[in-house]
């Protein structure tokens, strides 16, 4: 086969060599981005620092230049913009300062609000405000006023203020309401008591003047309605008040009628259901409340008994006084100080009645027998010791163991012993191992002085107590010496019991620095003062002078403790 002699172009042309990778440009961009990023960070860092500084300075400025609440009020009242008093919030510094000022003002306003609410509560307590609605109104006005002021400064704080104030305000209103309610009820109850007392006297007077059921109803109608109106203001106890009121009316009626019957000596008629001017009233009452007449009869008896008891007691008291004076006069006669004639005259003027035998005894110059003299001495001792009283003496006289004059003398002695507590006081001094002179020399703070005074006071109270008991039972005796001894021992014992442990505690503490440490009270009490002086202190740091002081104090407490153990209260001299 013949070879092709033609050359045919293979279609070669200029070939593309591909795009250049402009990595240098990309790298430059990356480098500049990295640098920019770093510069941004530096700038951010520096700006952040500056911002923090500005915020700090702003807050300082805000704290140092805070407008007072008064300035804010003045600005509002004079129509000036409140903004002028505060920092401009357009800069970082200003924003921080404004925030600080707003925060401080918020606190000031909250404080002011709290003070105002406290004032409201005070006013409520002082009853200057008595209407709960008024409290609510004042609180709301406060919240609204303060809230508006705060809103002009910082809306966020205004919201916060309203929330906080509303909570406090609610509590205050609630407290005030409760207080006012309690006060109102209390006042109503006082009014009810007062009105009931007024009604009581008025009702008694009405019953006395017009004992007619129709008149009574007409005359008490207004008062009764007023009272019922008052009762209704205390719904919790309305029924109780009504019951008390009805009870009071019944009591007044019974008392009035009973007093009338007794004072007019109509007990006999009353027992036959005749109550004089009260007949109509009682019949009407009995028809409405069966048993009224029986109750009144019982009341009449009670009133009568009470009145009689009173009269009897008064008489007895008068007689007792006469007896005391008569005994003194008869004793005077017996001793020859008063003549028989004067005696009779004075006894007559006293109203003291002498029996024929008594008179004969006085007039007779008969001297007491030896047995009577012995008995007299015996009874005199008992009288002095407080072992017997007038009833025993009367008994002895009736049995002729002593003469009339002797009995009178002993009664006089008895009266004099009873009216003075000298014997008892002497016993008290002896129990405390002291005499009256020593007592006077004692310092005002000496415990013995106070203890003696306490014992004397107790003795006096006991005497009064016995005198009261004698009214019921004349045979009760006031044994002044025994009572005084018991009281003095009790007072002294209680004092020693309370003081001895205190003295031992101090002594125990003082003894701790000594090797011969006596850890029990009994062991300590075995020490003599000489032994204490010879004890060596186990503490090098204490000076010789202080060691002596320590020993002196231990001895002082040893003496005290020993005294207490012997039942003696050491003098504080």
């Amino acid at each position, binding site marked *: 086969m013949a070879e092709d002699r033609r050359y045919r172009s293979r279609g070669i042309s200029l070939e593309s060599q591909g795009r250049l990778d402009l990595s240098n440009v990309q790298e430059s961009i990356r480098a500049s981005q990295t640098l920019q990023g*770093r510069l941004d960070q530096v700038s951010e860092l520096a700006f952040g620092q500056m911002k923090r500084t500005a915020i700090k300075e702003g807050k300082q400025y805000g704290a140092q230049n805070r407008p007072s609440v008064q300035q804010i009020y003045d600005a509002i009242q004079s129509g000036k913009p409140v903004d002028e008093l505060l920092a401009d919030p357009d800069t970082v510094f200003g924003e921080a300062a404004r925030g600080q000022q707003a925060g401080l003002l918020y606190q000031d306003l909250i404080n002011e609000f709290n003070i105002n609410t406290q004032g409201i509560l005070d006013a409520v307590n002082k009853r200057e405000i008595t209407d709960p609605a008024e409290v609510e109104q004042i609180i709301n006005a406060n919240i609204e006023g303060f809230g508006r002021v705060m809103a002009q400064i910082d809306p966020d704080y205004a919201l916060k203020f309203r929330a906080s104030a509303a909570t406090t305000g609610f509590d205050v209103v609630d407290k005030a309401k409760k207080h006012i309610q309690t006060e109102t009820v209390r006042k109503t109850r006082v009014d009810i008591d007062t009105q009931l007392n007024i009604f009581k006297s008025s009702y008694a007077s009405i019953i006395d003047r017009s004992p007619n059921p129709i008149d009574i109803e007409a005359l008490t109608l207004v008062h009764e309605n007023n009272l019922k109106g008052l009762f209704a203001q205390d719904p919790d106890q309305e029924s109780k008040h009504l019951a008390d009121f009805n009870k009071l009316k019944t009591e007044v009626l019974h008392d009035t009628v009973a007093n009338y019957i007794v004072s007019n000596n109509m007990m006999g008629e009353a027992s036959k259901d005749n109550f004089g001017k009260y007949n109509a009233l009682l019949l009407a009452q009995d028809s409405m409340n069966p048993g009224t007449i029986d109750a009144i009869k019982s009341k009449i008896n009670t009133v009568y008994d009470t009145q009689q008891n009173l009269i009897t007691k008064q008489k007895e008291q008068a007689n007792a006084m006469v007896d005391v004076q008569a005994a003194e006069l008869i004793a005077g006669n017996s001793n020859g100080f008063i003549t028989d004639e004067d005696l009779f005259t004075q006894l007559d003027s006293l109203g003291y009645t002498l029996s024929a035998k008594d008179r004969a005894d006085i007039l007779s110059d008969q001297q007491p027998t030896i047995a009577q003299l012995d008995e007299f001495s015996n009874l005199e001792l008992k009288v002095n010791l407080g072992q017997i009283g007038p009833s025993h003496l009367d008994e002895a006289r009736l049995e002729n163991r002593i003469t009339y004059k002797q009995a009178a003398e002993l009664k006089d002695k008895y009266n004099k012993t009873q009216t003075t507590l000298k014997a008892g006081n002497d016993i008290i001094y002896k129990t405390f191992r002291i005499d009256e002179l020593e007592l006077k020399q004692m310092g005002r703070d000496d415990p013995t002085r106070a203890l003696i005074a306490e014992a004397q006071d107790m003795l006096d109270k006991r005497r009064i107590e016995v005198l009261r008991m004698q009214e019921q039972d004349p045979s009760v005796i006031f044994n002044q010496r025994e009572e005084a001894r018991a009281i003095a021992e009790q007072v002294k014992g209680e004092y020693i019991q309370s003081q001895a442990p205190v003295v031992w505690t101090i002594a125990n503490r003082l003894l701790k620095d000594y090797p011969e440490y006596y850890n029990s009270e009994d062991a300590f009490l075995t020490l003599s003062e000489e032994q204490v002086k010879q004890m060596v202190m186990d503490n090098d740091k204490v000076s010789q002078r202080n060691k002596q002081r320590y020993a002196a104090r231990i001895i002082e407490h040893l003496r005290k403790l020993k005294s207490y153990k012997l039942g003696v209260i050491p003098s504080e001299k």
Partner: protein
Amino acid sequence: MAAAAPAVGTTAFWKGATTMALPSLSTSLFVGSTLLSAYQGYQQGRAQEAMYDVKAIEVLAETERKALEYELRANQTLRELRQRNAANLARGYGGGVMGLEGSSKLIETVNNREAGRDLMFDISNTKNAILQGQTQSEIYDTSADIARRTGILDAGSKLLMAGYAYKQLG
């Protein structure tokens, strides 16, 4: 005369060391992490630089390979041209005509023109490939340089910032 400093590692040296104020743990952490971060930035730059260096060498090698391909194809063109022209001459003389005249001459002329065009294109391609490769290689060299400088700059700026921040602590 100043006292001689204790030798490192001796008891006196360690005794002195214990009395020195030791930095707090947080300060140590801060300094350590900052140094590491700066070093990391520097190392990143160096890695980038190395990568561009390699790329530059790679692109030169690729260029040479391409240039060789063009050269081989040009040689092929020349060889084929000689074969065609020889065949043409042999045919002319074999057919009784003057091999270097007439139609044989015309065919040879056309053959020369066609092959010459292919040859010239391949020569241009070779030149272009070499130029492109060298240009790309230089670009990569420049990139490597930029990457190294960026790494150093990044590390330096990190150290400066850390120093500033540390100073702010007071």
